């Protein structure tokens, strides 16, 4: 384990006591940023945990909370006439405190990259137990992003996510997808 000063650590969030560490957490003032902070500060995170979602706080060695991430699974239905269900992995929410946007200056230690690399690792571990070639299991990681959140969209694209065309909903969010098959 490295002792690099910009190393991030992942601490599971499981209770309201963990949530107190996020007092003051703020993802920015844009209209699409409020709910990102609200999700982890309110009761939505616990609703998600009850569905089996895992949530981590990402912090520095000094205990400064940089952001949070979450990982879960869901089942979608293939279009008719198939209609069968398939499981896939999702990132329900992911957020970074605006004070740490673009930090640290060293690209190889960029906090956002560390956070996403951790989530992709956990997703890969999850699907490693899923059978290949079975339509009931889709080895993809999907997240949800607001169309105005250009910073996040560019970041996800650099990580290897691709936008699913035509997936924009009435709230202005669309889905992006990462193929987990190459990473095993």
């Amino acid at each position, binding site marked *: 384990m490295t002792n690099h000063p910009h190393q991030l650590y992942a601490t599971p969030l499981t209770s309201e006591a963990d949530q107190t560490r996020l007092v003051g957490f703020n993802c920015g003032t844009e209209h699409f940023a409020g*709910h990102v902070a609200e999700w982890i500060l309110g009761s939505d995170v616990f609703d998600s945990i009850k569905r089996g979602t895992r949530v981590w706080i990402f912090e520095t060695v000094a205990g400064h909370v940089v952001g949070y991430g979450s990982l879960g699974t869901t089942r979608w239905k293939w279009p008719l006439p198939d209609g069968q269900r398939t499981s896939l992995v999702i990132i329900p929410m992911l957020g970074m405190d605006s004070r740490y946007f673009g930090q640290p200056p060293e690209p190889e230690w960029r906090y956002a990259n560390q956070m996403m690399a951790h989530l992709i690792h956990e997703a890969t571990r999850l699907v490693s137990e899923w059978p290949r070639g079975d339509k009931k299991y889709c080895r993809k990681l999907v997240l949800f992003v607001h169309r105005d959140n250009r910073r996040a969209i560019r970041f996800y694209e650099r990580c290897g996510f691709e936008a699913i065309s035509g997936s924009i909903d009435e709230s202005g969010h669309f889905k992006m997808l990462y193929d987990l098959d190459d990473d095993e």
Partner: protein
Amino acid sequence: MTDTMLPDTPQTMARLDSVSCLLDWMRDMEPALRRQFVGALMECSDSIQQAVVSMMVIAKDQQAAPQDRQRALTTLADALFLRPDETDKDYGQPLAESETYTAKINPALNREVRTMNSQQEFFARQVRAIMDSKRLSQQDLAVRMGCTQPAISQLLDRLPHCRPQKRTIHKLAEALAVPPQELWPDLETAEMLDAVARFQQDDYAMTVAEAAALSASGKSKVKLKPKPLPTRPRR
């Protein structure tokens, strides 16, 4: 009236059963309680009286589940003995009380309830402030919202104490010609959180484009390498 004048229909039999049940109840009561009961029943509207009698039938039904008989009794007691002009409170438990109690035992909800309450106060002030700034009377607002002036008057009176429904916020915003967020700033946040919750729900029906994306292989793209983060060392 003789028996031959009563139509022999299921409705008549049901009504007679109800009356019989009512008489049984009253017969079993102490006189003072019977007077109180009859007095309270007579003050109710016909609709509530019918509800009371139907609850009596269930409460006396030995075949009914015990919890249903209890629920019927509770409903009957509410109908007869809890009236808004006899207590300081409205009928039923107000939302504010219910939320206050829940928030005490659930810290995550406590924060949300406090946020909603402050939004509620802001909403009430904003509506009046915008009406004043645009010199809109209650009648003007009533016309724009398609309701009566008394309804607007009562709405404004209740604003500081009630949580408006989303459609009311939108309707008021349209009538006042302001964006809904100007009345309820967290409206968009609430809608986005709802969208996130729906994203996690099972049984979402994929579009054809989503199905094609899920079926495709993405091997050619440059991707971030997966790498686990350690847990923070204890100090």
